C-alpha cells in the first residue's frame, strides 16, 4: 500500500532547498547570466551569481550546458477543473472554479514536462458573464488547495462573440443573447443591476443605523451573483474577457469605461493588432495564441504577427494554450513571436513568464529569476526558443516536480519489471 501511495507524490519533492549550478540563467528581467548558480532556500531564490555555495545537505543540480529560465506561465487554460462552463444560465458570476478543482488532472503533469509552473485556469466562454477563475501553481501530487496562488488577482470570465451566440445555436433555442449587441446589452444590464443592488444595501444600512427606524426592517436579498458583480464594480474582481473581433474588443473597453470596471486582460484578441494604440491608452493587456487563426469565421482576420506587433507598440502581451496541446510547448509558441514579427528573444520569453505574471498581479512572486522571488525554474537542454529545446526539469518553489531523467529511468525500470513478471507465465522464449 505504501509503495502505491509513494507513486502519487514525487519522492524527492520534499525539501524546498536547492542549488542549481553552472547554468546559463535567462532572468528575463535582468538579462542573461552565463555560467551562474541559483540558490533557493525555503522555496525562495536567495541568490543568483557565480560560485554560490549550498548550505550543508542542500541538493545540488549541475546544470552545466543547460539553460535555466523562470517557470513558464500559461495565462489562459482550462486544466485541473471538473467543470468549465455553467451552462444552466447566461449570467453566472456566483460560480467559482475554486469549487471545481481537480488536482489529479494528468494535464498538470503534461504542463510540467514543458516547463510550465503556473496557470490561470478559467471558466469557459459559453456565457457573457461566466464564473470566477483561479491561478494555480502546478504542484503535481499535492492537494488542490495547496496549488492555489492566493496572491493572484481574483478574476471573472466575460465573453463576447460567437461562442455565446453559438453555444446554443444548434439546435435552435430561445436563449438570449443570439447577437453581439445582445451580449453587450446583458453585460450592461447586469452591471447596472449590481449598481442598484449596492445602492439598495446602502439604503438598508443607513436605515438600520437610524435609531428612529420602524420595527420591521427586512434586509435586502443577499444575492451571491450580484455580490460578485458588485466586486467587479468596486474593482476588487477583475474582468478577463474572451474577445476576437476588434470592434467588440473596443466595445468591451468602452463598457469598462462606461460602467467603471477593471479589465485584467483581454483574451484571444485576434484583431488586437488593429487597435494597439487604443489598448495602450486603456492600459489593458492581451493574452493571445501565437499563430492560430481562421479556426472560425470571427478569427479569419487573425495574423501570426499579432503578439509581436502589439508587444512592440507597448501592449502587455502574454501567450496562452487555452488548454490545447500547446500547454506542453509554450516555449515553441514564444519562439514564433521571434519568427513572426521579429521580437527580441528576451521579449519573446516575457510573453510566457513575466507578462502573464503582471496580468495576474503576481510579478513580485514569480515570472522572472530574481533574488527574493519564489524559486520557480525550468531547466532546458538548449535556449528555450531553440527549435530543438526540451525541458529537462521543472521546479516550483524549490521543489522538483518534473525530472526527465528520472521519468525515463522509472519507465525503463518498470518495463523491465513488467517483462520479468510476464516471463514465468509459461510463455516460451524464442
Amino acid at each position, binding site marked *: 500500500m505504501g509503495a502505491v501511495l509513494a507513486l502519487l507524490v514525487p519522492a524527492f519533492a520534499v525539501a524546498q532547498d536547492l542549488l542549481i549550478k553552472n547554468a546559463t540563467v535567462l532572468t528575463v528581467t535582468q538579462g542573461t547570466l552565463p555560467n551562474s548558480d541559483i540558490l533557493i532556500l525555503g522555496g525562495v531564490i536567495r541568490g543568483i551569481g557565480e560560485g554560490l555555495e549550498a548550505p550543508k545537505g542542500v541538493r545540488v543540480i549541475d546544470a552545466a550546458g543547460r539553460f535555466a529560465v523562470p517557470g513558464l506561465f500559461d495565462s489562459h487554460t482550462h486544466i485541473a477543473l471538473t*467543470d468549465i462552463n455553467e451552462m444552466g444560465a447566461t449570467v453566472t458570476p456566483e460560480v467559482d472554479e475554486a469549487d471545481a478543482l481537480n488536482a489529479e488532472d494528468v494535464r498538470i503533469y503534461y504542463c510540467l514536462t514543458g516547463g510550465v509552473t503556473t496557470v490561470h485556469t478559467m471558466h469557459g466562454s459559453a456565457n457573457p458573464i461566466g464564473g470566477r477563475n483561479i491561478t494555480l501553481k502546478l504542484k503535481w501530487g499535492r492537494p488542490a488547495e495547496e496549488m492555489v496562488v492566493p496572491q493572484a488577482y481574483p478574476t471573472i470570465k466575460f465573453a463576447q462573440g460567437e461562442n455565446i451566440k453559438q453555444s446554443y445555436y444548434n439546435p435552435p433555442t430561445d436563449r438570449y443573447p443570439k447577437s453581439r449587441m445582445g451580449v453587450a446589452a446583458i453585460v450592461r444590464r447586469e452591471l447596472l443591476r449590481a449598481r442598484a443592488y449596492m445602492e439598495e444595501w446602502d439604503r438598508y444600512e443607513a436605515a438600520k443605523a437610524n435609531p428612529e427606524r420602524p420595527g420591521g426592517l427586512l434586509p435586502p*436579498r443577499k444575492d451571491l451573483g450580484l455580490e460578485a458583480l458588485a466586486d467587479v464594480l468596486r474593482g476588487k474582481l477583475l474582468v478577463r474577457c474572451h474577445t476576437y473581433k476588434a470592434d467588440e474588443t473596443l466595445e468591451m473597453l468602452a463598457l469598462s469605461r462606461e460602467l467603471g470596471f477593471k479589465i485584467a486582460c483581454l483574451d484571444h484578441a485576434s484583431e488586437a493588432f488593429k487597435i494597439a494604440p487604443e489598448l495602450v491608452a486603456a492600459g489593458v493587456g492581451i493574452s493571445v495564441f501565437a499563430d492560430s487563426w481562421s479556426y472560425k469565421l470571427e478569427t479569419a482576420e487573425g495574423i501570426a504577427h499579432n503578439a509581436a506587433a502589439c508587444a512592440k507598440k507597448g501592449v502587455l502581451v502574454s501567450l496562452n494554450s487555452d488548454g490545447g496541446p500547446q500547454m506542453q510547448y509554450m516555449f515553441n509558441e514564444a519562439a514564433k513571436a521571434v519568427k513572426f514579427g521579429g521580437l527580441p528573444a528576451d521579449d519573446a520569453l516575457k510573453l510566457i513568464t513575466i507578462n502573464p505574471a503582471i496580468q495576474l498581479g503576481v510579478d513580485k512572486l514569480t515570472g522572472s529569476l530574481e533574488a527574493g522571488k519564489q524559486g520557480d525554474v525550468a531547466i532546458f537542454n538548449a535556449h528555450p526558443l531553440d527549435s530543438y529545446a526540451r525541458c529537462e526539469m521543472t521546479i516550483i518553489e524549490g521543489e522538483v516536480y518534473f525530472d526527465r531523467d528520472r521519468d525515463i529511468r522509472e519507465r525503463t525500470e518498470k518495463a523491465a519489471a513488467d517483462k520479468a513478471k510476464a516471463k514465468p507465465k509459461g510463455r516460451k522464449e524464442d
Partner: protein
Amino acid sequence: MKSRLGFVLLAFVAALAAPSAAAWEPAYAVVGCRVVPVSGPPIEDAVIVVRDGLVESVGPRPAVRVPGDAEIVDGKGLTVYPGFIDAFAAGLVQVPPEPKPDPGEFLGTAPPVKGADGRTPEFGAYEHLAAGAVEQEALRKTGVLTVLAAPRRRMFSGRSVLVNLNGGSPAEMVVRNPVALHVEFTGARGAYPTTGMGVQAFFRQLCLDAARYRTAGSLSAGRGSGVRRPVYDPFLESLSPYLLDGAPVIFACDGQEEIKKALRLIAGCGVRGLVAGANEAWRVADALRAAGIPLLLSVNFAPPALSIYAQRGKEAKETAEKETYPGNAARLKAAGIPFALTSYGLEKGADLMAQVRKAVQAGLAEDEALKALTVHPARFLGVDGQLGSIEPGKIANLVLSAGDIFKEGTKVRMLFVDGRRFEVKEDKPGGAAPPAPGGGR
C-alpha cells in the same frame, strides 16, 4: 345508539388496520449462546430474552431468568450480534426513471426536465420504498436488519427513511422518517445549475434565501411591522429544516475533491452534514479529522473516475481496487476518524458484508468493523437509544450466526427483527428459500 355502533365499527376497522406483526409474536429466550453486545464485552453461555419487539434481558445464563412463557431457542454454537445497519442503501428506493435525453434538449435552454431538475427535496424514500419480501430476505441473511433507504437523484435528491427489515408493511418497518436530506454534486438537466460548482453556489444561495424567507415570514406576521408577507415558496419550505434548523444533510461524495466540497458547504453554511461514499477518504484524513463530520463510508473499492488511481491504465486501476481502496477504513481508524460502513455505490446491497470482510482483510480490526455496522451508524443517525447494541430496552434486532461473522463462510442461522424471528434456510439451487415461520406475508 347509531353513534355507538359507529364507534364500535370504527374501532373494529382500526384494529384490522393496526400493525399486528409484534402483537402475535411470542416471547423468545435464546439460551446458551455467545453474545457480542458491542456496548460491552462478549458474554459466553448467555441468555437473551426478547419480548414485544424489544430485548427484555440479556446476561450470563445463571443471572437471567428464562420466563415461563418464552419459546426457547437453543443458542448452543451460535454467536449473537446486534442487527447490522446499512446507513446508505440506495437500492431500496424506487427512483422514477429520468426521461431519455432529447436530441433537442440542450443544457440550460430547454425547459427543465421534470424529475431531473435536482429540485426534489420533498421526494420521500418512504413513499418509494422498494423493499419487498425478496429484497428484505436477501439482506437479512447477511445480517443487515436496518437500512437507511436513501434516494440518489440530482442535487436535492430527496429524504431518506430508516427501516427495520421486519417483513411488515412499510409503516411497520419505519424506525424514523424522514431522516436526512440527500444532496448530490450532480447538476440538473435543462435547469440551472448544470455543474458541481453551480450546485455549490446554488446551495449557498439557498441557505441565504431560506434564512431571509423565514425572517420575512416572521416579521410580516408581527403586528404593524410594515413588512409584506413573502410569496409562499414550497421549495424553500421543504429545504428549511435542513438548511436552517439542523436536520441532517447527507452529501454523496465520490472522490476526494467532492469530500472537500461537502466539508466546505457544511462549514460555510452551518448545516449538520454527513459525508456518504468517500471511498478514498483516507486521502483527506486531516481535513476530515478537523471537521469531525460523520462518515457513511462506501465499501465499493473501485477508484473514482477522477482519481489518479483510475487514470493509469486498467491494470493499475484493478490493482488499486484490490490492494489500496479496501484499506480506506483501516487508515481512517488509524487516523482516529469514526465511520459507518455502508453499501453506497454497490450494485447489490447484499454484498455489503462480503466487502466489509475485504476491509477487515485489509487491516480493519474486526471489532471496529462491527462498530461501523452497529453503534456508529446508530449514533450518526440519532437512533443509538434504540439500535446498535444488545441491551435491555433496545429494539430486538439480532443476528445469530454459526461463529465469527467476519470469518469467510460463516453462516447466519437465525435473525430477530423487531423481536420477530426469521430462520435462514440454506439456498437451494434453482429455487427460493421457503418462507421462514412467522416471516413474509
